[in-house]
């Protein structure tokens, strides 16, 4: 009989049941959601995409392990968050970026933006975005060398990236505006299809809007993200773009162009929704999404950079604590705002 032998029973505070959720499971779901975009990135950019993804994932995991060991803490890599950061960082890089620079980005993302603040849960900014922005500011030329996808030699030679640079759609628009020309990018149904599927130049993971949306739907189904941030973000961009387009058709691209080009889908679905750096409550998430959308469009239209997603999200990350304070729910049995 169990009560007569020396069995020790587990004693803890309630509850004694658990939903089975775990951080590892959430991270695994994010990785699964990124698989469509991952496969398409390989398809469009060949070996260079494979190289970058491998370097970033391994680089992030090893950096995290080393940092934790040096700090005298447990290894911490088994929650898979470093793998997710590595993947997202790789998705934000152009195919021609040298591996050494990618590694610098990994170190920045994990050691500085995450581990120095205390590890997972304590970082105020999205680590992958900090890594990308650090690279952009440190190596501006290498980080803005773009290539058209589906190059014939992409699986047979690594050298195909030499000398075949092209501008991203947003880059072309920015150059044109700077020289007072009307927006030069031809925009028709073929363009839209290409942008949706990913047949455009850009960072290896951001090109295919369709793959990213599929991933987003999977995340919604698995309840890893809620619809609030992506919808608020993309919706704000759409409305802002529509207003601009109506006001000045010559200087502004159509709404769909803004939605499908650049890193908007990647940013809105995978980066802005990062749990640690986005607000806790649903109202807070809506405010966050709207803020990201506004900043993105402002930077795209009037800022110095052609793409505004990374900076917009990082800026909104910095006011997430304020948003959290402002959007605390009304406690049951209390009037709003009292304690």
């Amino acid at each position, binding site marked *: 009989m169990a009560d007569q032998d020396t069995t020790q*029973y*587990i*004693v*803890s*505070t309630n509850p004694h049941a658990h939903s089975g959720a775990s951080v590892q499971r959430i991270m695994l779901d994010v990785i699964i959601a990124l698989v469509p975009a991952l496969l398409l990135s390989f398809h469009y950019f060949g070996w260079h995409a494979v190289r970058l993804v491998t370097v970033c994932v391994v680089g992030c995991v090893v950096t995290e392990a080393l940092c934790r060991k040096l700090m005298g*803490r*447990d*290894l*911490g890599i*088994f929650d898979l968050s470093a793998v997710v950061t590595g993947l997202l960082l790789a998705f934000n890089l152009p195919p021609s970026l040298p591996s050494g620079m990618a590694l610098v980005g990994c170190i920045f993302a994990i050691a500085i933006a995450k581990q120095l603040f205390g590890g997972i849960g304590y970082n105020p900014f999205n680590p992958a975005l900090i890594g990308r922005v650090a690279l952009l500011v440190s190596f501006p030329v290498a980080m803005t060398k773009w290539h058209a996808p589906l190059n014939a030699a992409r699986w047979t030679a690594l050298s195909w990236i030499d000398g075949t640079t092209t501008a991203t759609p947003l880059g072309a628009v920015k150059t044109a505006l700077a020289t007072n020309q009307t927006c030069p990018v031809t925009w028709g149904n073929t363009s839209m299809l290409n942008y949706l599927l990913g047949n455009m130049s850009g960072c290896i993971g951001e090109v295919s809007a369709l793959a990213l949306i599929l991933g987003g739907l999977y995340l919604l189904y698995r309840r890893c993200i809620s619809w609030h941030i992506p919808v608020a973000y993309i919706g704000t961009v759409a409305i802002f773009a529509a207003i601009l387009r109506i006001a000045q058709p010559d200087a502004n691209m159509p709404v769909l162009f803004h939605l499908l080009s650049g890193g908007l889908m990647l940013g809105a679905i995978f980066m802005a929704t990062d749990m640690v750096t986005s607000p806790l409550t649903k109202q807070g998430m809506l405010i966050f999404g709207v803020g990201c959308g506004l900043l993105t469009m402002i930077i795209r239209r009037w800022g110095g950079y052609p793409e505004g997603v990374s900076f917009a999200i990082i800026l909104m990350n910095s006011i997430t604590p304020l948003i959290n304070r402002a959007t605390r729910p009304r406690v049951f049995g209390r009037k709003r705002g009292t304690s």
Partner: protein
Amino acid sequence: MDINTILITAGAIGGVGLVCGTALALAAKFLAVKEDPRVEAMEEILPGANCGGCGFAGCADYAKAIINDGAAINLCAPGGAEVLDAIAKAMGIEASVEEKKVAVVMCAGDSDKAPRKHLYNGVADCTAAAAVAGGDKVCRYGCLGYGSCANVCPVGAIEIKKGVAIVHPELCISCGACVSACPRNLIKMVPISRTIHVLCSSKDKGPVVKKACQVGCIGCRMCVKLAGDAFEMDGFLARRNYDIPVENEGIVEKCPGKCIIKRGDSEDPAPAKPETAPEQTEGEASETKREG
């Protein structure tokens, strides 16, 4: 880039620096807060550990209290006799030097001697563990070993060895933080020269104690018989009267409960880097699987 640009830039930045520097220097001189020089002198005397043992918010606060509010001058335990002397001299008061006190955890029931009654899973903190089903040790008075005392010790003098806390007396600065941290009030401040202790705090009767711990006090009163006033009984628990030294150290072997132990420098030398908290497993403040 011609030389003019460089000169102009350097000159502009240098000029701004000069203006700011001058402004700061003037402010330091004319807007300085007048500090009582005696308070500053007192701050120099105090050790500067800011441990809060005196009951004030750091050494600067205590210095102010001594000079301005007439606070007692013997509150700085880490400073010891040296600092007390210096303060007394500065204030022109006589000071009686008391012997330095160190903290001692009155429990020796480690994992070899005192069994656990259940597997506690929860916050790795003694107060938290004590609140769940009365603590996971069979002895409901004993040290739980989750390190609440070790975590508050400002100098890392407390080591958790085999599931009980042990204070390294040579590292202890007598601030008393550990005394209030222990949820079972096991830690007492004891004069440093007294090395013989009754390392048990169980008020249970002998047979109950025997089931709970191999080195618990069984209330046999042998120590009172053999060593007289150095020990006194508090119900079924023997306690040390630290005013009186133990003449014959043989009492340690004679105690049937094996709860009288000699703790001192020779017995527990401080290791190079004492572990001050239970081994950190995956994750932070938490899981508490007991193995050893």
